[in-house]
């Protein structure tokens, strides 16, 4: 346990700045995650397997895959982020770390933001890095693959941020996993639409600057609003249990 | 009056099934919601009545369980 908690538990006199508290939370999440590498690998394997299902289940034809490829990759990425969300708070909730986080003098939404960013680094970023390989496997052209990775790069942090609200709301509930998907999937729809739409526009060699800017706007909106909602939800869930 | 006869009204110019299916579904579902809400209310009122009901008087009250609890107190 000694190596476990690296949270800034100090007296108010030597109070920690919000930024360094965020850093501490972020690096702690990374460290604890790397202790169980299998958990990090699972969403990625899931991503690859779901993508594999489509050529097998629908059609391996190049024309179909090229048309549907961006959608398949986006849906698979969305689902694997969704699956990994359950881990975002559960471990900390079970061992009591979360209660400590809520009690910190630093604003909770900043710490939540740090946790969401750590979640993205652990799941979203690997998905983005894996996407080119799968993009080639579904016969996307070079330009489309690049745009796809770009949309995933902008889009997956939005998924992590919005997802953190759902994870906080369903914390400590029975069958939280299904409920979480139920709550969050409708909120993911705009990201999915613009993610795939941008790639499609790029494959028709239309300009995609506007769509990418809009996705950036989604990201900014999620960065500013989601941590507040997530922090409020965390407080409610913790007072409940 | 947009229709010449009652049968023309029912037929809705060939679109009768669609129109009537919509209206039937509307009234059915609204009816179900209203019925369900009224029932829920009755159930809750009955529950609260049972909860608020005064304790039965001493002579008709079963005595066994109470004495047993008292004896186990020491």
């Amino acid at each position, binding site marked *: 346990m000694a190596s476990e908690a690296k949270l800034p538990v100090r007296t108010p006199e030597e109070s920690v700045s919000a930024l360094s508290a965020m850093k501490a939370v972020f690096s702690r999440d990374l460290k604890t995650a790397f202790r169980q590498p299998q958990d990090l690998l699972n969403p990625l394997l899931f991503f690859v397997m779901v993508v594999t299902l489509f050529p097998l289940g629908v059609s391996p034809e190049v024309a179909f895959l090229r048309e549907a490829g961006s959608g398949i990759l986006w849906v698979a990425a969305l689902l694997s982020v969704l699956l990994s969300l359950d881990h975002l708070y559960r471990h900390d909730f079970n061992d009591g770390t979360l209660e400590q986080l809520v009690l910190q003098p630093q604003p909770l939404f900043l710490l939540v933001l740090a946790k969401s960013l750590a979640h993205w680094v652990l799941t979203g970023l690997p998905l983005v890095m894996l996407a080119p390989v799968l993009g080639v496997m579904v016969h996307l052209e070079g330009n489309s693959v690049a745009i796809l990775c770009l949309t995933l790069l902008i889009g997956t942090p939005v998924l992590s941020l*919005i997802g953190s609200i759902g994870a906080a*709301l369903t914390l400590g509930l029975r069958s939280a996993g299904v*409920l979480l998907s139920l*709550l969050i999937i409708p909120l993911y729809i705009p990201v999915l639409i*613009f993610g795939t739409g941008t790639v499609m526009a790029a494959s028709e060699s239309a300009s995609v600057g506007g769509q990418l800017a809009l996705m950036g706007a989604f990201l900014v909106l999620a960065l500013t609003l989601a941590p507040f909602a997530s922090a409020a939800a965390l407080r409610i869930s913790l007072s*409940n249990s | 009056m947009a229709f010449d006869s009652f049968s023309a009204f029912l037929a809705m110019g060939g679109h009768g099934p669609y129109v009537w299916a*919509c209206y039937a579904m509307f009234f059915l579902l609204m009816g179900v919601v209203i019925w369900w*809400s009224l029932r829920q209310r009755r159930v*809750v009122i009955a529950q609260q009545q049972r909860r608020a009901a005064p304790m039965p008087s001493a002579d008709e009250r079963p005595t066994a369980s109470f004495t047993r609890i008292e004896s186990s107190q020491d």
Partner: protein
Amino acid sequence: MWQIFHKLGSPKWFFGIASTLMPWLLVAGAALLMTGIVWGLVFAPQDYLQGNSYRIIFIHVPSAFLAQSVYIMMAVAALVTLVWRMKLADVFVTAVAPVGAVLTFLALFTGAVWGKPTWGTWWIWDARLTSMLILLFLYFGVMALGAAISDEKSSARAVAVLVLVGVVNIPIIKYSVEWWNTLHQPATFKLTEKPSMPAEMWVPLLLSVLGLYLIFGWLACLRMQTHILAREGRTRWVKELVQARGN
């Protein structure tokens, strides 16, 4: 001002007001709705493009209209719940969500059935129908979360957070669904937008919208009263009320 606000928040006060209002709401709502529907079904002229199938409008539009405004009302109530911790507001959110879901379903159902004679298929991935479907998902999420948390207070507050997150998303969802729709199929024919609707058509439509609003108001009062009775069972006024009602 604050006194009125606190009074508004008191379940007992609301219960009394609701009881006096409800008969009026029901009678006026039913009268308006039935007038609108009968007028629309029997007396309104036939549409030159769609024939008689357009008469579905007199329930489709009220359902769709209310489905959306119920969610907005829930969001306002959710904000009040979170900011002022007003008891009545969270009762409103939990009491009204299933009604909103039913109305959304009705809007979808009537839209789909209307689509068959006009578009030739039951379902089309049209922007309006699709965003209605997503609204239905949002309602389901709210209901599922409310049911999953057993503690009433934290259930209400968690649901309030979700409703607010949803309402921030609704315009984004609408916009993106519309964009997506133009990407895939340019809109050829829209259900509710007509070049100009004669008064014989829009007056009954307005009546049925108003009527359904009033009926919703009645239903909301009824369901809120039920929730209040269930929650405030320990207070004296509920006990007295319940006693007076029975026996």
